[in-house]
Each structure stands twice: as structure tokens, then as C-alpha cells.
């Protein structure tokens, strides 16, 4: 059942057993938590950056906002390459062909 992967190995059933153990541990820790927690009060509401409005939804564009914004300068350059112009698409094919020619004729 164990898959050898060069340096190491991988056995999903072993992993599942380990995961079950960790879950059990987490449950034990959780069961020793505070008893004075009450259901059905404000404590159950999700905290959405202080947003009080009912039914507020963090849309797909907003999750990981900082992460995406951090990457944006790099990604915008990549996006500019996806111009949607069919000539550019063919241009990239010519570039790759040129690289391949360089490698097979000069490099190898």
C-alpha cells in the first residue's frame, strides 16, 4: 500500500490514521474548553470586519484582498501579455520556435 516516491514514501491510510489521531486530540482540547458559552446570542455571529449589516457577504473578489493586491503588480504585467490579439498568440509560438531552434542547433 505504500507508494515509494524516490526519497520518501506516501501511504494515505497511514495519513488518515494520523489525521484521526489529531482530530481526536483536538476534540479532547475542545471538550476542556469554557462551559459558560451560550448559544443563540451575539457571540455566534461571524465577525466581518465590524460589518453589522444582516446578510453581508464577502464576495469572491474580496477574500485574500491583501494577498491579491500584493501580487497585482506582477500579475498585471502577465495580464498585459494576454492581449487577446491573435497575432500576439502566433508571435509567442514564433518565439518558442526560435528558442527551440537555438537549443537544437546551437546548444546541443
Amino acid at each position, binding site marked *: 500500500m505504500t507508494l515509494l516516491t524516490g526519497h520518501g514514501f506516501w501511504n494515505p491510510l497511514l495519513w488518515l490514521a494520523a489525521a484521526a489521531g489529531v482530530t481526536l486530540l483536538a476534540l479532547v482540547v475542545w471538550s476542556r474548553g469554557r462551559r459558560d458559552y451560550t448559544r443563540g446570542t451575539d457571540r455566534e455571529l461571524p465577525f466581518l470586519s465590524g460589518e453589522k449589516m444582516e446578510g453581508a457577504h464577502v464576495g469572491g473578489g474580496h477574500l485574500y484582498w491583501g494577498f491579491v493586491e500584493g501580487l497585482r503588480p506582477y500579475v498585471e504585467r502577465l*495580464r498585459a501579455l*494576454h*492581449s*487577446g*490579439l*491573435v*497575432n500576439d498568440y*502566433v*508571435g509567442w509560438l*514564433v518565439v518558442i520556435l526560435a528558442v527551440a531552434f537555438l537549443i537544437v542547433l546551437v546548444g546541443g
Partner: protein
Amino acid sequence: MIGNTPFVVCMVLVLLGLWALLFRRNLIKVVIGIKIVENGVNLYLVATGYVRGGIVPIYTYAPPDAAMVLPTPQALTLTSIVIGLATTALMLAFVVVIHRHKKTLDGRKVTELSG
């Protein structure tokens, strides 16, 4: 040297077609560029099968000791031409549909899908 002329012509055709593909913005001209590349390749295929002084490769009519040109490249070229017909027809059909929607054939304005 002179025997290589067909191959040089083929490569010139391929490069011409590529030039059209790279620098012509009109979608119809892009398709024409593809056709030029294709004709260059087809010509190359036929040229590889040519035998100097060879005759048509049909056994029934051939004199006993005649040299024949190779039939395989001709069969390949025929197949390739048929495939080219299908691809060209399909591409032109898409161009017609694009023109119907966008009222333009300028590739720079047909960039709804980008980024």
C-alpha cells in the same frame, strides 16, 4: 544548388505566411496567412517526392523501365489539402460570425477575451 530551389521557395512562402500572421490585423488576412504557410508546406511535401525525369506513378500506363515520382508524398499532400480546406472553411465561418456580432474584422477590436 539549383535542385534546392523548390525548397527555398517553400521556406519563403512559409515565412511570408508567418509575416502575415504576425503583422496583419485583419482576421481574413490572418486566415490568408495560414493558407500561404500551408501552401508552402504542401509544396515542400510534393517537392520531396520528385524524381528527376520521373513520370506519373500509375503502373498501368508506365513504360517498363521508367522512373516514377514517389506517390506517397502526393497522397500526403492531397490529405493535407483536404484538411486545409476544412480548417479554412471553419475559420472563415468563425470570422463571419465574429463580423456579425462585432461589425468589424480588426483583430485589435476582437479582444473580448483577454487578461
